[in-house]
């Protein structure tokens, strides 16, 4: 219970700080954010947009991890865990895409411009969209779990490349691209310590939220499967 209250307070603080803390030219006090050329007030979306992309990575990692566990132990509970993680992964992947597109409309002038970052997240959506198509096309439980586990592990190999590598080595519009004059990875581009603090608090908060949602998700799947099996035995 304690961590749920902690999570609530943390997310409240992050939301309030992320939206209301002022952006100034020369940050002096602890609650002031620095002015970043080209991003301005829009820079604040980093507290809400980046965590969604981060959760996409965590969720797809958990999908691959529990797929691997399933292949080793053949326990269908692990398959439920990997399915719940993938569901969250695709939701956050869509959220990262949509929030990014809304921001791009005002930062770059168009919702979609096939920037390397947008292209790579689109490829990810297709790869994991195919995963759901694969799952829903197989009737047998064991066969579905095995095939989708293999697919999930192979699919995860592409995730670090699409999220962390490709958008950074190619020139593009997204902050952190190879030709970004603010330089460096997205995380430390001209953020001051205060902005970084709120940013990492936000990442921690969203990560805890993810694990909570994931636990509820896979528990409901496991109970549903258990119930179905009991009903089958009783006939």
């Amino acid at each position, binding site marked *: 219970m304690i961590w749920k209250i902690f999570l609530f307070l943390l997310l409240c603080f992050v*939301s309030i700080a*992320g*939206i209301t803390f002022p952006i100034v030219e020369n940050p002096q006090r602890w609650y002031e954010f620095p002015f970043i050329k080209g991003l*301005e*007030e*829009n820079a*604040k*979306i980093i507290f*809400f*947009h980046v965590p*969604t992309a981060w959760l996409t990575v965590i969720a797809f990692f958990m999908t691959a991890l529990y797929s691997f566990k399933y292949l080793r132990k053949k326990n269908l509970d692990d398959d439920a865990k990997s399915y719940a993680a993938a*569901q*969250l992964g695709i*939701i*956050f992947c*869509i*959220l990262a895409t*949509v*929030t990014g597109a*809304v*921001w791009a409309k*005002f930062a770059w002038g168009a919702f979609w411009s096939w920037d390397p970052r947008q292209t790579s997240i689109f490829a990810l959506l297709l790869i994991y969209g195919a995963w759901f198509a694969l799952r829903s096309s197989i009737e047998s439980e064991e066969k579905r779990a095995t095939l989708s586990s293999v697919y999930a592990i192979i699919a995860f190999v592409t995730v670090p490349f699409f999220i962390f590598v490709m958008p950074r080595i190619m020139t593009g519009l997204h902050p952190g691209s190879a030709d970004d004059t603010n330089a460096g990875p997205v995380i430390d581009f001209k953020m001051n310590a205060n902005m970084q603090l709120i940013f990492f608090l936000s990442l921690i908060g969203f990560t805890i*939220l993810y694990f909570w*949602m994931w636990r*509820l*998700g896979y528990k*409901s*799947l496991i*109970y*549903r499967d258990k*119930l*179905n099996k009991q*009903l089958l035995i*009783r006939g």
Partner: protein
Amino acid sequence: MEFLEKNAIYIVMIIVLIVWVGIFFYLLNLDKRIKNVEKEIGDKK
């Protein structure tokens, strides 16, 4: 659109709202699943 360009903070607000919509859809999905389980339990009782 012009209003949003001048008041970028509302874009941040829209983005927070979109994140909440996503979480809300996940909850709806979860709710549906749990309701189905409840129904199955109810049928057999």
